């Protein structure tokens, strides 16, 4: 069970800020593939992953990052702080 969080336009497209996901995915990319199969709005949100950033347990990560033991995965567009 992994908490999956969405921010900014990813949150808007998927229509919720977070959800608990039952998954056997071993990497972030695997998780993305599983999510895309759920519903068209997921497929739309993840259509171009080069436009997305990901954090695993609140640390910036890559799509190839393993999920072993991860409790929280977040997807969002490039950050615009400052």
């Amino acid at each position, binding site marked *: 069970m992994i908490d999956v969080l969405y921010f900014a336009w990813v949150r808007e497209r998927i229509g919720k800020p977070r959800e608990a996901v039952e998954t056997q995915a071993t990497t972030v990319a695997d998780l993305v593939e599983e999510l895309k199969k759920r519903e068209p709005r997921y497929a739309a949100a993840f259509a171009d992953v080069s436009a997305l950033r990901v954090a695993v347990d*609140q640390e910036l990560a890559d799509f190839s990052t393993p999920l072993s033991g991860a409790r929280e995965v*977040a997807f*969002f567009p490039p950050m*615009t*702080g400052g």
Partner: protein
Amino acid sequence: MSGAGGVRVQREAFDLGAELEAFEAATSGAGAMVSFTGIVRDDAGGRLDRMEIEHYPGMTERALEKIRADAMKRWDLAGALIVHRHGALRPGEWIMMVATAARHRKAAFAAAEFLMDYLKSRAPFWKKEYTSDGAEWVAAKEEDEAALTRW
């Protein structure tokens, strides 16, 4: 925690003068203090109603702490402060500030620029602008990502 300052993420406005006074009072031996303040700019020709800043509670604080710790390690600083707002802000309001203090101006300037470069593209904030035409997410700039390569 090493040095004066720290990091804060808050919805409320901050008092720049009071922040700088308190920060400076907590530093010792610093001869130089640099501050940067970001202001909500109306690029929509007077049509900007507000900017809404979303962030990732938990990760934001961790990211800011890390950026601050990296700066403290890299330069000989008496302190570093980061204050960043979230929520709705009007044109002309202050979005965020950083302050650095050091014995000499060179380190204080360099560290403040470093903090800003990392805040721009490594801290989980997202901005949405609301104008009379609708709402739009502010896109990240390539030059902000490129700015990191100099450090």
